[in-house]
């Protein structure tokens, strides 16, 4: 991610105070914090997974969040969508999300969209972002976002969960495989309604936020070409080495993307 040529905004004395417990993290410091402040992150859906990503990035001091999520808050959201509240039942999810995040970090800038990623908004929303975190429950949305991030050469953190299991990887165009390398077509077996505990989506949400922070600041080693999968039922964690599919219709040599 090329933030190098950008002038990062300075930190106010309030910000130095708020982030004083993370500034001493090796590899971060004031420079890393200014990069976070200067960064825009698109989170596609702020449900079970994206709520926690947004909360962690807002807490960490990312400057601008672009959030896309349609629909109103339902009772069945409340076991995992941690930005929704009982008091907000029946109200638009995106309004509740924005309010909760403002309460935490009033310095945040927002572009909140009350609809999910679709053909009509994907170009604009990805265009505004430095990095994307993919948290949508449907492959249609994920594959659309993948196509656009590859086209615009933007990094995308790919996080997903199912039952007590979760997975995480980070795609950087030209350096790693893309989502279509792994999942070339929408898998027919995937159902919109999936079994989920909030603690599982929350666990991978925290890790996805950390991946975004690492890509933005340059700290540590993101999961590039590595695919983390884990099962909280028996606490087994596995990291697989993944590779680009040369025949991938989105990033492969025959796709004309290079």
């Amino acid at each position, binding site marked *: 991610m090329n933030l190098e040529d950008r002038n990062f905004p300075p930190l106010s004395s309030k910000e130095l105070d708020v982030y004083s417990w993370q500034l001493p993290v090796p590899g971060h410091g004031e420079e890393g914090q200014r990069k976070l402040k200067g960064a825009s992150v698109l989170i596609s859906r702020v*449900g079970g997974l994206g709520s926690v990503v947004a909360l962690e990035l807002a807490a960490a001091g990312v400057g601008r969040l672009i959030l896309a999520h349609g629909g109103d808050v339902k009772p069945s959201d409340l076991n995992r969508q941690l930005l929704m509240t009982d008091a907000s039942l029946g109200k638009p999810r995106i309004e509740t999300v924005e309010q909760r995040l403002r309460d935490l970090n009033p310095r945040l800038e927002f572009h909140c969209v009350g609809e999910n990623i679709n053909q009509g908004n994907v170009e604009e929303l990805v265009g505004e972002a430095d990095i994307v975190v993919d948290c949508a429950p449907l492959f249609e949305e994920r594959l659309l976002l993948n196509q656009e991030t590859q086209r615009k050469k933007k990094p995308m953190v790919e996080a997903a969960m199912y039952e007590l299991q979760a997975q995480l990887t980070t795609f950087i165009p030209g350096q790693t495989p893309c989502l279509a390398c792994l999942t070339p077509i929408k898998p027919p077996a995937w159902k919109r309604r999936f079994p989920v505990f909030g603690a599982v989506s929350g666990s991978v949400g925290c890790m996805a936020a950390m991946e975004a922070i690492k890509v933005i600041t340059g700290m540590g080693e993101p999961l590039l070409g590595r695919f983390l999968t884990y099962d909280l039922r028996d606490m087994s964690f596995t990291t697989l080495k993944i590779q680009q599919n040369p025949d991938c219709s989105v990033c492969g040599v025959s796709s004309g993307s290079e």
Partner: protein
Amino acid sequence: MKLKLEWMSQLRVAAGQARQSVECEEGTRLEQALRLALEQLPPDRASALSALLLDGEALSPSLLIAVDEIQVPIGTDPSLSDGATLVLMAPIAGG
């Protein structure tokens, strides 16, 4: 020789178990090892798994398969060594 197999995501639920070990002949290839693994399971488990693993007769292109933690390219059928660990995963998108 002996192989270890780990089912992930929906495959783990369909198999009713996370791990399975498969006895097979030296040089057995991936697809044959999977057939042997399915034969070891009760028919209802095997058929639930086959529905997720197969696209017609072939393995689904959306499966993530790894041998000893390295992804096997789609459409290849490598021969396996004694003690190899296979990881099989169907794609998930829970958000």
